[in-house]
Protein backbone atom coordinates (compact mmCIF):
# COMPACT_ATOMS: atom_id res chain seq x y z
CA UNK A 1 0.00 0.00 0.00
CA UNK A 2 1.49 3.37 -0.89
CA UNK A 3 1.16 6.59 1.00
CA UNK A 4 -1.44 7.97 -1.39
CA UNK A 5 -3.63 4.93 -1.31
CA UNK A 6 -5.27 5.23 2.07
CA UNK A 7 -8.35 3.12 1.50
CA UNK A 8 -11.76 4.72 1.24
CA UNK A 9 -14.05 2.25 2.93
CA UNK A 10 -17.74 1.80 3.34
CA UNK A 11 -18.99 2.51 6.85
CA UNK A 12 -19.69 -1.19 7.35
CA UNK A 13 -16.17 -2.13 6.27
CA UNK A 14 -14.75 0.46 8.66
CA UNK A 15 -16.63 -0.92 11.61
CA UNK A 16 -15.74 -4.50 10.69
CA UNK A 17 -12.08 -3.55 10.32
CA UNK A 18 -11.97 -1.72 13.61
CA UNK A 19 -13.66 -4.47 15.53
CA UNK A 20 -11.41 -7.07 13.95
CA UNK A 21 -8.35 -5.03 14.87
CA UNK A 22 -9.52 -4.55 18.40
CA UNK A 23 -10.62 -8.16 18.84
CA UNK A 24 -7.11 -9.23 17.78
CA UNK A 25 -5.72 -7.06 20.53
CA UNK A 26 -7.93 -8.29 23.33
CA UNK A 27 -5.93 -10.35 25.73
CA UNK A 28 -6.60 -11.11 29.35
CA UNK A 29 -4.89 -7.92 30.49
CA UNK A 30 -6.85 -5.61 28.18
CA UNK A 31 -10.10 -7.33 29.09
CA UNK A 32 -9.32 -6.94 32.77
CA UNK A 33 -8.57 -3.27 32.31
CA UNK A 34 -11.84 -2.65 30.49
CA UNK A 35 -13.89 -4.58 33.02
CA UNK A 36 -12.34 -2.72 35.94
CA UNK A 37 -13.59 0.77 35.09
CA UNK A 38 -16.09 2.08 37.66
CA UNK A 39 -16.99 5.24 35.70
CA UNK A 40 -15.66 7.55 38.39
CA UNK A 41 -14.28 10.01 35.84
CA UNK A 42 -11.21 10.77 37.95
CA UNK A 43 -8.93 10.16 34.97
CA UNK A 44 -10.22 13.42 33.46
CA UNK A 45 -8.42 15.31 36.21
CA UNK A 46 -5.02 14.07 35.03
CA UNK A 47 -5.54 14.86 31.36
CA UNK A 48 -4.22 18.15 30.02
CA UNK A 49 -6.92 18.14 27.33
CA UNK A 50 -9.68 18.04 29.93
CA UNK A 51 -7.89 20.47 32.23
CA UNK A 52 -7.47 22.95 29.39
CA UNK A 53 -11.04 22.69 28.07
CA UNK A 54 -13.20 21.13 30.83
CA UNK A 55 -14.94 19.33 27.98
CA UNK A 56 -16.08 15.91 29.26
CA UNK A 57 -15.44 14.20 25.94
CA UNK A 58 -11.72 14.48 26.65
CA UNK A 59 -12.02 12.18 29.66
CA UNK A 60 -9.34 9.56 28.96
CA UNK A 61 -11.45 6.46 29.52
CA UNK A 62 -14.21 7.92 27.30
CA UNK A 63 -11.71 7.90 24.45
CA UNK A 64 -11.90 4.10 24.39
CA UNK A 65 -15.67 3.92 24.90
CA UNK A 66 -16.56 2.34 21.51
CA UNK A 67 -13.96 -0.32 22.11
CA UNK A 68 -15.18 -1.05 25.63
CA UNK A 69 -18.62 -1.28 24.09
CA UNK A 70 -17.42 -3.68 21.40
CA UNK A 71 -15.46 -5.80 23.84
CA UNK A 72 -18.38 -6.15 26.22
CA UNK A 73 -20.75 -6.99 23.38
CA UNK A 74 -18.48 -9.36 21.50
CA UNK A 75 -15.91 -10.91 23.82
CA UNK A 76 -16.67 -10.36 27.50
CA UNK A 77 -17.85 -12.96 29.98
CA UNK A 78 -21.37 -11.57 29.69
CA UNK A 79 -21.35 -10.95 25.94
CA UNK A 80 -24.34 -13.23 25.18
CA UNK A 81 -26.43 -11.36 27.75
CA UNK A 82 -25.37 -7.97 26.45
CA UNK A 83 -26.41 -8.98 22.95
CA UNK A 84 -29.63 -10.71 24.06
CA UNK A 85 -30.91 -7.76 26.05
CA UNK A 86 -29.38 -5.09 23.85
CA UNK A 87 -27.43 -3.53 26.73
CA UNK A 88 -24.48 -2.84 24.43
CA UNK A 89 -25.26 -1.65 20.94
CA UNK A 90 -23.10 -2.31 17.95
CA UNK A 91 -20.51 0.37 17.32
CA UNK A 92 -21.50 2.54 14.38
CA UNK A 93 -19.37 4.04 11.65
CA UNK A 94 -20.36 7.56 12.70
CA UNK A 95 -19.29 6.82 16.25
CA UNK A 96 -15.89 5.63 15.09
CA UNK A 97 -15.42 8.63 12.82
CA UNK A 98 -16.07 10.95 15.77
CA UNK A 99 -13.65 8.99 17.91
CA UNK A 100 -10.79 9.75 15.52
CA UNK A 101 -10.69 13.20 17.11
CA UNK A 102 -10.65 11.72 20.60
CA UNK A 103 -8.04 9.05 19.96
CA UNK A 104 -5.62 11.00 17.81
CA UNK A 105 -6.18 14.78 17.97
CA UNK A 106 -6.71 14.89 21.70
CA UNK A 107 -4.47 12.21 23.15
CA UNK A 108 -0.68 12.13 23.32
CA UNK A 109 -0.64 8.68 24.91
CA UNK A 110 1.32 10.38 27.68
CA UNK A 111 0.03 8.03 30.38
CA UNK A 112 -0.66 10.61 33.08
CA UNK A 113 -4.21 9.24 33.36
CA UNK A 114 -2.78 5.83 34.22
CA UNK A 115 -1.31 7.27 37.41
CA UNK A 116 -4.54 8.69 38.75
CA UNK A 117 -7.02 5.86 38.17
CA UNK A 118 -8.11 4.51 41.57
CA UNK A 119 -8.70 1.13 39.94
CA UNK A 120 -5.16 1.14 38.56
CA UNK A 121 -6.21 0.90 34.91
CA UNK A 122 -3.48 1.68 32.39
CA UNK A 123 -5.75 3.78 30.20
CA UNK A 124 -2.91 4.83 27.90
CA UNK A 125 -2.37 1.18 26.97
CA UNK A 126 -6.04 0.86 26.04
CA UNK A 127 -5.82 4.00 23.94
CA UNK A 128 -2.84 2.62 22.07
CA UNK A 129 -4.80 -0.55 21.30
CA UNK A 130 -7.77 1.52 20.19
CA UNK A 131 -5.51 3.39 17.80
CA UNK A 132 -4.62 0.05 16.24
CA UNK A 133 -8.30 -0.61 15.64
CA UNK A 134 -8.80 2.85 14.17
CA UNK A 135 -5.93 2.19 11.79
CA UNK A 136 -7.61 -1.04 10.71
CA UNK A 137 -10.80 0.94 10.16
CA UNK A 138 -8.97 3.32 7.84
CA UNK A 139 -9.44 6.10 10.37
CA UNK A 140 -5.86 7.00 11.18
CA UNK A 141 -5.29 10.70 10.48
CA UNK A 142 -4.05 11.21 6.93
CA UNK A 143 -0.83 12.90 8.01
CA UNK A 144 0.18 10.02 10.26
CA UNK A 145 -0.95 7.39 7.78
CA UNK A 146 1.06 8.92 4.94
CA UNK A 147 4.22 9.26 7.00
CA UNK A 148 3.88 5.72 8.37
CA UNK A 149 3.35 4.33 4.87
CA UNK A 150 6.36 6.21 3.53
CA UNK A 151 8.56 5.18 6.43
CA UNK A 152 7.51 1.56 6.16
CA UNK A 153 8.46 1.56 2.48
CA UNK A 154 11.57 3.71 2.48
CA UNK A 155 12.78 4.17 6.04
CA UNK A 156 12.01 7.88 5.88
CA UNK A 157 8.68 9.33 7.04
CA UNK A 158 8.61 11.61 4.02
CA UNK A 159 10.63 12.44 0.97
CA UNK A 160 13.48 14.87 1.52
CA UNK A 161 15.42 17.04 -0.90
CA UNK A 162 18.49 15.03 0.02
CA UNK A 163 18.48 11.57 1.58
CA UNK A 164 18.88 11.77 5.35
CA UNK A 165 22.13 9.84 5.04
CA UNK A 166 23.62 12.64 2.98
CA UNK A 167 22.22 15.26 5.33
CA UNK A 168 23.84 13.44 8.23
CA UNK A 169 27.22 13.52 6.52
CA UNK A 170 26.73 17.22 5.75
CA UNK A 171 25.99 17.92 9.42
CA UNK A 172 29.26 16.23 10.37
CA UNK A 173 31.16 18.39 7.91
CA UNK A 174 29.39 21.58 8.95
CA UNK A 175 30.03 21.08 12.66
CA UNK A 176 33.41 19.49 12.17
CA UNK A 177 32.59 16.29 13.98
CA UNK A 178 33.15 12.76 12.67
CA UNK A 179 30.00 10.86 11.75
CA UNK A 180 30.70 7.12 11.96
CA UNK A 181 28.60 5.50 9.25
CA UNK A 182 27.95 1.93 8.14
CA UNK A 183 30.71 0.42 10.21
CA UNK A 184 30.49 -3.13 11.47
CA UNK A 185 31.59 -4.78 14.69
CA UNK A 186 30.78 -1.84 16.89
CA UNK A 187 29.53 -1.65 20.44
CA UNK A 188 26.80 0.88 19.82
CA UNK A 189 24.44 1.55 16.94
CA UNK A 190 23.21 5.13 16.73
CA UNK A 191 20.08 6.45 15.14
CA UNK A 192 18.68 9.92 14.88
CA UNK A 193 15.31 11.67 15.02
CA UNK A 194 14.35 13.01 11.64
CA UNK A 195 13.19 16.06 13.61
CA UNK A 196 16.80 16.69 14.58
CA UNK A 197 18.09 16.27 11.02
CA UNK A 198 15.53 18.74 9.74
CA UNK A 199 15.29 21.19 12.63
CA UNK A 200 18.05 20.64 15.14
CA UNK A 201 21.25 19.58 13.37
CA UNK A 202 23.14 20.86 16.42
CA UNK A 203 21.60 17.97 18.38
CA UNK A 204 22.89 15.49 15.79
CA UNK A 205 26.33 17.02 16.03
CA UNK A 206 26.10 16.94 19.82
CA UNK A 207 25.38 13.22 19.76
CA UNK A 208 28.36 12.56 17.51
CA UNK A 209 30.58 14.82 19.61
CA UNK A 210 29.67 13.14 22.87
CA UNK A 211 30.23 9.68 21.42
CA UNK A 212 33.59 10.79 20.05
CA UNK A 213 34.50 12.25 23.44
CA UNK A 214 33.66 8.97 25.15
CA UNK A 215 35.69 7.06 22.59
CA UNK A 216 32.73 4.82 21.95
CA UNK A 217 32.84 2.22 19.23
CA UNK A 218 29.69 3.25 17.39
CA UNK A 219 28.08 3.80 14.04
CA UNK A 220 25.03 5.12 12.27
CA UNK A 221 23.62 2.76 9.65
CA UNK A 222 22.29 4.08 6.35
CA UNK A 223 19.55 1.49 6.29
CA UNK A 224 18.40 2.10 9.84
CA UNK A 225 18.86 5.76 10.45
CA UNK A 226 15.57 7.20 11.63
CA UNK A 227 14.50 6.74 15.23
CA UNK A 228 10.86 7.81 15.02
CA UNK A 229 8.23 5.22 14.30
CA UNK A 230 5.20 6.61 12.51
CA UNK A 231 3.63 3.17 12.51
CA UNK A 232 3.41 3.55 16.29
CA UNK A 233 1.83 6.98 15.97
CA UNK A 234 -0.69 5.93 13.31
CA UNK A 235 -1.69 2.72 15.07
CA UNK A 236 -0.44 0.51 12.23
CA UNK A 237 0.98 -2.38 14.16
CA UNK A 238 2.36 -4.23 11.15
CA UNK A 239 4.05 -1.08 9.93
CA UNK A 240 5.34 -0.36 13.40
CA UNK A 241 6.92 -3.79 13.37
CA UNK A 242 8.44 -3.31 9.91
CA UNK A 243 9.88 0.06 10.90
CA UNK A 244 11.30 -1.36 14.14
CA UNK A 245 12.72 -4.37 12.31
CA UNK A 246 14.67 -2.05 10.03
CA UNK A 247 16.65 -0.83 13.05
CA UNK A 248 16.80 -4.22 14.73
CA UNK A 249 18.22 -5.82 11.59
CA UNK A 250 20.86 -3.12 11.30
CA UNK A 251 21.83 -3.41 14.95
CA UNK A 252 22.26 -7.14 14.51
CA UNK A 253 24.19 -6.62 11.27
CA UNK A 254 26.76 -4.38 12.95
CA UNK A 255 26.92 -6.65 16.02
CA UNK A 256 25.94 -3.79 18.30
CA UNK A 257 25.59 -4.46 21.98
CA UNK A 258 23.52 -1.32 22.46
CA UNK A 259 20.97 0.38 20.21
CA UNK A 260 21.17 3.96 21.39
CA UNK A 261 17.91 5.88 21.06
CA UNK A 262 18.49 9.61 20.67
CA UNK A 263 16.44 12.32 22.34
CA UNK A 264 13.06 11.10 21.13
CA UNK A 265 10.49 9.91 23.63
CA UNK A 266 8.17 7.87 21.43
CA UNK A 267 11.10 6.27 19.64
CA UNK A 268 12.24 5.13 23.05
CA UNK A 269 8.86 3.56 23.85
CA UNK A 270 8.69 1.91 20.43
CA UNK A 271 12.20 0.49 20.59
CA UNK A 272 12.78 -0.08 24.29
CA UNK A 273 9.41 -1.46 25.34
CA UNK A 274 7.56 -2.59 22.24
CA UNK A 275 10.06 -3.68 19.60
CA UNK A 276 10.93 -6.99 21.24
CA UNK A 277 7.29 -8.06 21.30
CA UNK A 278 6.94 -7.22 17.63
CA UNK A 279 10.23 -9.01 16.92
CA UNK A 280 8.80 -12.02 18.77
CA UNK A 281 11.79 -12.65 21.01
CA UNK A 282 14.21 -10.92 23.34
CA UNK A 283 16.41 -8.52 21.42
CA UNK A 284 20.05 -9.60 21.13
CA UNK A 285 21.20 -6.16 22.25
CA UNK A 286 20.30 -3.60 24.86
CA UNK A 287 18.12 -0.63 23.97
CA UNK A 288 19.12 2.50 25.83
CA UNK A 289 18.19 6.16 25.59
CA UNK A 290 21.03 8.58 25.14
CA UNK A 291 20.00 10.28 28.38
CA UNK A 292 20.27 7.14 30.48
CA UNK A 293 23.42 6.10 28.63
CA UNK A 294 25.09 9.39 29.52
CA UNK A 295 23.83 9.02 33.08
CA UNK A 296 25.52 5.63 33.28
CA UNK A 297 28.74 7.03 31.78
CA UNK A 298 28.65 9.82 34.33
CA UNK A 299 28.15 7.41 37.20
CA UNK A 300 30.98 5.21 35.92
CA UNK A 301 33.29 8.22 35.84
CA UNK A 302 33.88 8.08 32.09
CA UNK A 303 31.97 11.30 31.49
CA UNK A 304 33.11 14.43 33.26
CA UNK A 305 31.33 17.71 32.82
CA UNK A 306 32.12 21.30 33.63
CA UNK A 307 29.81 23.79 35.24
CA UNK A 308 27.15 25.16 32.96
CA UNK A 309 27.03 28.91 32.62
CA UNK A 310 23.39 29.11 31.73
CA UNK A 311 21.07 30.76 34.20
CA UNK A 312 18.10 29.40 36.07
CA UNK A 313 16.69 26.39 34.31
CA UNK A 314 13.61 24.23 34.40
CA UNK A 315 13.35 20.77 32.93
CA UNK A 316 10.47 19.27 30.96
CA UNK A 317 10.30 15.51 31.54
CA UNK A 318 9.34 13.80 28.27
CA UNK A 319 6.42 11.50 29.11
CA UNK A 320 7.64 8.47 27.20
CA UNK A 321 11.12 8.70 28.61
CA UNK A 322 10.32 9.46 32.22
CA UNK A 323 6.74 8.62 33.18
CA UNK A 324 6.38 5.60 30.91
CA UNK A 325 10.02 4.76 30.43
CA UNK A 326 11.55 5.08 33.88
CA UNK A 327 14.42 7.39 32.86
CA UNK A 328 13.88 9.71 35.78
CA UNK A 329 17.18 10.04 37.57
CA UNK A 330 19.64 10.30 34.68
CA UNK A 331 18.60 13.77 33.42
CA UNK A 332 18.79 15.17 36.92
CA UNK A 333 22.14 13.54 37.57
CA UNK A 334 23.50 15.10 34.38
CA UNK A 335 22.14 18.52 35.30
CA UNK A 336 23.56 18.20 38.79
CA UNK A 337 26.96 17.33 37.37
CA UNK A 338 26.88 20.57 35.39
CA UNK A 339 25.66 22.45 38.46
CA UNK A 340 22.54 23.56 36.61
CA UNK A 341 20.39 25.86 38.72
CA UNK A 342 17.30 23.70 38.39
CA UNK A 343 13.88 25.08 39.27
CA UNK A 344 11.55 22.10 39.11
CA UNK A 345 8.09 22.41 37.63
CA UNK A 346 5.22 21.94 40.04
CA UNK A 347 4.38 18.72 38.17
CA UNK A 348 7.68 17.09 37.35
CA UNK A 349 9.26 13.66 37.01
CA UNK A 350 6.61 11.04 36.42
CA UNK A 351 3.81 13.54 36.97
CA UNK A 352 4.92 16.06 34.38
CA UNK A 353 2.31 17.41 31.99
CA UNK A 354 2.84 16.41 28.38
CA UNK A 355 4.09 19.10 26.00
CA UNK A 356 0.98 18.41 23.91
CA UNK A 357 2.80 17.37 20.76
CA UNK A 358 3.57 13.73 21.46
CA UNK A 359 1.84 10.70 19.99
CA UNK A 360 1.94 12.24 16.52
CA UNK A 361 -0.37 15.10 17.53
CA UNK A 362 2.17 17.68 16.41
CA UNK A 363 1.83 16.34 12.87
CA UNK A 364 -1.99 16.45 12.77
CA UNK A 365 -3.05 19.78 11.26
CA UNK A 366 -6.65 19.75 12.49
CA UNK A 367 -5.40 19.12 16.04
CA UNK A 368 -3.45 22.38 16.20
CA UNK A 369 -6.10 24.70 17.76
CA UNK A 370 -6.78 22.25 20.57
CA UNK A 371 -3.08 21.53 20.98
CA UNK A 372 -2.35 25.21 21.56
CA UNK A 373 -4.94 25.28 24.35
CA UNK A 374 -3.26 22.35 26.09
CA UNK A 375 0.23 23.72 25.57
CA UNK A 376 -0.83 26.82 27.47
CA UNK A 377 -1.24 24.65 30.59
CA UNK A 378 2.40 23.72 30.30
CA UNK A 379 3.67 27.16 29.37
CA UNK A 380 1.98 28.71 32.41
CA UNK A 381 3.60 26.13 34.65
CA UNK A 382 7.01 26.77 33.10
CA UNK A 383 6.63 30.52 33.52
CA UNK A 384 5.65 30.02 37.16
CA UNK A 385 9.07 28.53 37.92
CA UNK A 386 10.69 31.85 37.04
CA UNK A 387 13.43 29.95 35.21
CA UNK A 388 15.19 31.64 32.31
CA UNK A 389 15.83 28.46 30.33
CA UNK A 390 13.73 25.45 29.40
CA UNK A 391 15.60 22.21 28.97
CA UNK A 392 14.27 18.91 27.70
CA UNK A 393 15.50 15.61 26.32
CA UNK A 394 13.09 14.91 23.47
CA UNK A 395 13.21 16.53 20.08
CA UNK A 396 9.45 16.23 19.56
CA UNK A 397 8.85 18.07 22.84
CA UNK A 398 11.43 20.62 21.77
CA UNK A 399 9.69 21.11 18.45
CA UNK A 400 6.32 21.44 20.16
CA UNK A 401 7.68 24.15 22.46
CA UNK A 402 9.33 25.92 19.54
CA UNK A 403 6.02 25.86 17.68
CA UNK A 404 4.27 27.23 20.76
CA UNK A 405 6.95 29.89 21.09
CA UNK A 406 6.20 31.08 17.57
CA UNK A 407 2.44 30.87 18.08
CA UNK A 408 2.31 32.69 21.40
CA UNK A 409 5.43 34.82 20.96
CA UNK A 410 6.62 33.12 24.13
CA UNK A 411 9.85 34.40 25.62
CA UNK A 412 11.61 31.03 25.86
CA UNK A 413 13.19 28.61 23.43
CA UNK A 414 13.63 25.01 24.53
CA UNK A 415 17.13 23.61 24.68
CA UNK A 416 18.44 20.09 24.46
CA UNK A 417 19.99 18.38 27.47
CA UNK A 418 22.23 16.43 25.10
CA UNK A 419 23.50 19.65 23.55
CA UNK A 420 24.13 21.07 27.00
CA UNK A 421 26.18 18.00 27.84
CA UNK A 422 28.10 18.26 24.54
CA UNK A 423 28.87 21.90 25.26
CA UNK A 424 30.19 21.14 28.73
CA UNK A 425 32.47 18.19 28.14
CA UNK A 426 35.79 18.26 29.92
CA UNK A 427 38.47 17.14 27.53
CA UNK A 428 40.99 14.76 29.02
CA UNK A 429 43.78 16.68 30.70
CA UNK A 430 41.66 19.81 31.03
CA UNK A 431 40.45 21.10 34.38
CA UNK A 432 36.79 21.81 35.08
Amino acid at each position, binding site marked *: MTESSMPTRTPEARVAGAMKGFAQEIGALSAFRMESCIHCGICAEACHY*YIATEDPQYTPIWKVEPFKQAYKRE*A*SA*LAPLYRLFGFKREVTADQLAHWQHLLFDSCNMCGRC*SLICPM*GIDIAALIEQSRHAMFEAGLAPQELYDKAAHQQLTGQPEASAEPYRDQLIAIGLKFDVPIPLDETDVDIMLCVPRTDIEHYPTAVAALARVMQHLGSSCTFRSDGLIAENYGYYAGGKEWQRDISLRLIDQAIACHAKILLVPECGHAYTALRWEAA*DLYGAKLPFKVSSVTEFLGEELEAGRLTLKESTQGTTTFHDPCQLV*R*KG*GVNEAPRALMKAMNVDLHELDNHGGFSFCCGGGGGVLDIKQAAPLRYRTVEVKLREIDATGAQTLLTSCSDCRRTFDDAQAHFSWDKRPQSLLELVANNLIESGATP
Partner: protein
Amino acid sequence: MDLLTFARGMGLKAAIAIFCLGVTWRIVAFALLKIRRDFAAPRESILKYLSGGLITTMARSWPHREFIGRTGPGEALGYSYHLGLFAVVLLFTPHILLLGSLFGFTWPGLPSSIITIISVLTLTLFLAVLFRRVTNPVMRMLSNFDDYFSWFITMLVMVTGLAATAHVGGPYETLLAIHILAVDALLIWFPFGKLMHAFYIFPSRAINGALLGRKGATS
Protein backbone atom coordinates in the same frame (compact mmCIF):
# COMPACT_ATOMS: atom_id res chain seq x y z
CA MET B 1 -43.33 -20.94 53.69
CA ASP B 2 -43.46 -17.34 54.87
CA LEU B 3 -41.52 -14.50 53.31
CA LEU B 4 -38.78 -14.43 55.94
CA THR B 5 -38.21 -18.18 55.71
CA PHE B 6 -37.94 -17.93 51.95
CA ALA B 7 -35.68 -14.87 52.06
CA ARG B 8 -33.13 -16.36 54.40
CA GLY B 9 -33.60 -19.94 53.26
CA MET B 10 -34.02 -20.89 49.66
CA GLY B 11 -33.78 -17.30 48.46
CA LEU B 12 -30.45 -16.68 50.14
CA LYS B 13 -29.03 -20.04 49.05
CA ALA B 14 -30.02 -19.40 45.43
CA ALA B 15 -28.58 -15.90 45.58
CA ILE B 16 -25.29 -17.14 47.05
CA ALA B 17 -25.09 -19.83 44.36
CA ILE B 18 -25.62 -17.28 41.57
CA PHE B 19 -23.14 -14.95 43.25
CA CYS B 20 -20.45 -17.64 43.50
CA LEU B 21 -20.96 -19.02 40.01
CA GLY B 22 -21.21 -15.58 38.46
CA VAL B 23 -18.13 -14.20 40.20
CA THR B 24 -16.16 -17.32 39.32
CA TRP B 25 -17.19 -17.03 35.66
CA ARG B 26 -16.32 -13.33 35.54
CA ILE B 27 -12.82 -14.19 36.78
CA VAL B 28 -12.30 -17.44 34.87
CA ALA B 29 -13.34 -15.72 31.63
CA PHE B 30 -10.14 -13.67 31.73
CA ALA B 31 -8.06 -16.83 31.94
CA LEU B 32 -9.64 -18.03 28.69
CA LEU B 33 -8.17 -15.04 26.87
CA LYS B 34 -4.58 -15.02 25.72
CA ILE B 35 -1.83 -13.73 27.96
CA ARG B 36 0.93 -12.11 26.00
CA ARG B 37 4.53 -12.62 26.97
CA ASP B 38 6.50 -9.42 27.37
CA PHE B 39 9.84 -9.85 25.61
CA ALA B 40 11.21 -6.41 26.48
CA ALA B 41 14.07 -6.66 28.95
CA PRO B 42 12.94 -5.38 32.36
CA ARG B 43 14.78 -2.46 33.85
CA GLU B 44 14.27 -3.70 37.38
CA SER B 45 14.60 -7.03 39.15
CA ILE B 46 11.51 -9.16 39.62
CA LEU B 47 11.52 -8.38 43.34
CA LYS B 48 11.52 -4.68 42.62
CA TYR B 49 8.59 -4.78 40.26
CA LEU B 50 6.59 -7.14 42.41
CA SER B 51 7.09 -4.77 45.29
CA GLY B 52 5.97 -1.99 42.92
CA GLY B 53 2.72 -3.88 42.47
CA LEU B 54 2.25 -4.22 46.18
CA ILE B 55 3.00 -0.58 46.84
CA THR B 56 0.59 0.59 44.13
CA THR B 57 -2.12 -1.67 45.55
CA MET B 58 -1.91 0.17 48.81
CA ALA B 59 -0.78 3.63 47.75
CA ARG B 60 -3.40 4.19 45.03
CA SER B 61 -6.01 4.60 47.78
CA TRP B 62 -4.46 7.98 48.48
CA PRO B 63 -4.10 10.43 45.58
CA HIS B 64 -0.62 11.56 44.56
CA ARG B 65 0.27 15.08 45.70
CA GLU B 66 0.03 16.28 42.11
CA PHE B 67 -3.61 15.21 41.84
CA ILE B 68 -5.07 15.71 45.27
CA GLY B 69 -6.14 19.29 44.68
CA ARG B 70 -8.37 18.21 41.81
CA THR B 71 -9.54 14.82 43.05
CA GLY B 72 -9.40 15.04 46.84
CA PRO B 73 -13.08 15.85 47.56
CA GLY B 74 -14.44 13.27 45.11
CA GLU B 75 -12.12 10.55 46.36
CA ALA B 76 -12.84 11.40 49.99
CA LEU B 77 -16.55 11.00 49.26
CA GLY B 78 -16.01 7.70 47.48
CA TYR B 79 -13.77 6.14 50.09
CA SER B 80 -15.91 7.45 52.99
CA TYR B 81 -19.09 5.69 51.91
CA HIS B 82 -17.12 2.52 51.24
CA LEU B 83 -15.74 2.66 54.77
CA GLY B 84 -19.27 3.23 56.07
CA LEU B 85 -20.52 0.22 54.15
CA PHE B 86 -17.72 -1.97 55.48
CA ALA B 87 -18.43 -0.86 59.04
CA VAL B 88 -22.13 -1.62 58.75
CA VAL B 89 -21.65 -4.97 57.00
CA LEU B 90 -18.76 -6.21 59.13
CA LEU B 91 -19.26 -4.61 62.54
CA PHE B 92 -23.02 -4.88 63.12
CA THR B 93 -23.57 -7.73 65.57
CA PRO B 94 -26.42 -9.51 63.71
CA HIS B 95 -24.27 -9.43 60.54
CA ILE B 96 -21.31 -10.82 62.49
CA LEU B 97 -23.44 -13.67 63.76
CA LEU B 98 -24.67 -14.45 60.24
CA LEU B 99 -21.16 -14.31 58.79
CA GLY B 100 -19.88 -16.27 61.77
CA SER B 101 -22.29 -19.08 60.95
CA LEU B 102 -20.79 -19.19 57.47
CA PHE B 103 -17.10 -18.84 58.37
CA GLY B 104 -17.08 -20.51 61.77
CA PHE B 105 -15.68 -17.61 63.78
CA THR B 106 -16.89 -14.23 64.99
CA TRP B 107 -15.37 -10.93 66.01
CA PRO B 108 -16.39 -8.01 68.23
CA GLY B 109 -18.98 -5.62 66.83
CA LEU B 110 -19.93 -2.01 67.45
CA PRO B 111 -22.93 -0.96 69.57
CA SER B 112 -26.17 -0.68 67.60
CA SER B 113 -26.41 3.04 68.27
CA ILE B 114 -23.01 3.63 66.67
CA ILE B 115 -23.96 1.45 63.71
CA THR B 116 -27.18 3.45 63.29
CA ILE B 117 -25.22 6.70 63.22
CA ILE B 118 -22.76 5.26 60.71
CA SER B 119 -25.66 3.97 58.61
CA VAL B 120 -27.34 7.36 58.48
CA LEU B 121 -24.03 9.04 57.59
CA THR B 122 -23.36 6.44 54.92
CA LEU B 123 -26.84 6.88 53.47
CA THR B 124 -26.25 10.62 53.32
CA LEU B 125 -22.92 10.07 51.57
CA PHE B 126 -24.62 7.66 49.21
CA LEU B 127 -27.15 10.33 48.24
CA ALA B 128 -24.26 12.75 47.72
CA VAL B 129 -22.61 10.20 45.45
CA LEU B 130 -25.74 10.00 43.31
CA PHE B 131 -26.04 13.78 43.25
CA ARG B 132 -22.45 14.00 42.10
CA ARG B 133 -22.95 11.38 39.43
CA VAL B 134 -25.90 13.23 37.89
CA THR B 135 -24.47 16.74 38.22
CA ASN B 136 -20.82 16.19 37.32
CA PRO B 137 -20.64 16.39 33.51
CA VAL B 138 -17.87 13.79 33.24
CA MET B 139 -19.57 11.26 35.52
CA ARG B 140 -22.96 11.84 33.90
CA MET B 141 -21.48 11.17 30.46
CA LEU B 142 -19.75 7.97 31.61
CA SER B 143 -22.70 6.59 33.57
CA ASN B 144 -24.97 3.85 32.32
CA PHE B 145 -27.70 1.54 33.63
CA ASP B 146 -25.16 -0.49 35.57
CA ASP B 147 -24.02 2.53 37.59
CA TYR B 148 -27.53 3.59 38.57
CA PHE B 149 -28.87 0.10 39.19
CA SER B 150 -25.86 -0.87 41.31
CA TRP B 151 -26.37 2.33 43.30
CA PHE B 152 -30.10 1.62 43.65
CA ILE B 153 -29.71 -1.95 44.85
CA THR B 154 -27.01 -1.07 47.38
CA MET B 155 -29.15 1.80 48.61
CA LEU B 156 -32.12 -0.55 48.89
CA VAL B 157 -30.14 -2.89 51.13
CA MET B 158 -29.07 0.00 53.33
CA VAL B 159 -32.51 1.60 53.62
CA THR B 160 -34.28 -1.68 54.35
CA GLY B 161 -31.61 -2.61 56.87
CA LEU B 162 -31.97 0.70 58.66
CA ALA B 163 -35.76 0.37 58.63
CA ALA B 164 -35.54 -3.14 60.09
CA THR B 165 -33.13 -2.04 62.80
CA ALA B 166 -35.27 0.97 63.69
CA HIS B 167 -38.51 -1.02 63.41
CA VAL B 168 -39.96 1.63 61.11
CA GLY B 169 -42.54 0.91 58.40
CA GLY B 170 -44.10 -2.38 59.48
CA PRO B 171 -43.71 -5.53 61.56
CA TYR B 172 -40.09 -6.43 62.30
CA GLU B 173 -40.26 -9.83 60.59
CA THR B 174 -41.60 -8.28 57.40
CA LEU B 175 -38.97 -5.56 57.45
CA LEU B 176 -36.26 -8.12 58.06
CA ALA B 177 -37.58 -10.31 55.23
CA ILE B 178 -37.56 -7.35 52.87
CA HIS B 179 -34.01 -6.47 53.93
CA ILE B 180 -32.80 -10.02 53.34
CA LEU B 181 -34.60 -10.12 49.98
CA ALA B 182 -32.78 -6.92 49.07
CA VAL B 183 -29.50 -8.61 50.03
CA ASP B 184 -30.50 -11.62 47.89
CA ALA B 185 -31.13 -9.27 44.97
CA LEU B 186 -27.77 -7.59 45.49
CA LEU B 187 -25.97 -10.93 45.52
CA ILE B 188 -27.74 -11.94 42.32
CA TRP B 189 -26.89 -8.64 40.61
CA PHE B 190 -23.33 -8.55 41.90
CA PRO B 191 -21.61 -10.63 39.18
CA PHE B 192 -23.49 -8.90 36.39
CA GLY B 193 -22.47 -5.35 37.08
CA LYS B 194 -19.87 -2.95 38.42
CA LEU B 195 -20.06 -4.32 41.95
CA MET B 196 -17.48 -6.77 40.62
CA HIS B 197 -14.94 -4.02 41.15
CA ALA B 198 -14.70 -5.33 44.70
CA PHE B 199 -12.83 -8.31 43.25
CA TYR B 200 -10.96 -6.37 40.58
CA ILE B 201 -9.61 -3.37 42.43
CA PHE B 202 -6.57 -4.85 44.14
CA PRO B 203 -5.40 -7.15 41.32
CA SER B 204 -5.88 -4.29 38.85
CA ARG B 205 -3.75 -1.94 40.91
CA ALA B 206 -1.16 -4.62 41.53
CA ILE B 207 -0.82 -5.45 37.83
CA ASN B 208 -0.49 -1.81 36.82
CA GLY B 209 2.05 -1.17 39.57
CA ALA B 210 4.07 -4.25 38.68
CA LEU B 211 4.12 -3.49 34.94
CA LEU B 212 5.19 0.09 35.54
CA GLY B 213 7.67 -1.12 38.15
CA ARG B 214 9.12 -3.49 35.57
CA LYS B 215 10.04 -0.43 33.55
CA GLY B 216 11.26 1.47 36.56
CA ALA B 217 8.48 3.94 35.79
CA THR B 218 6.33 6.00 38.12
CA SER B 219 3.30 4.24 39.52
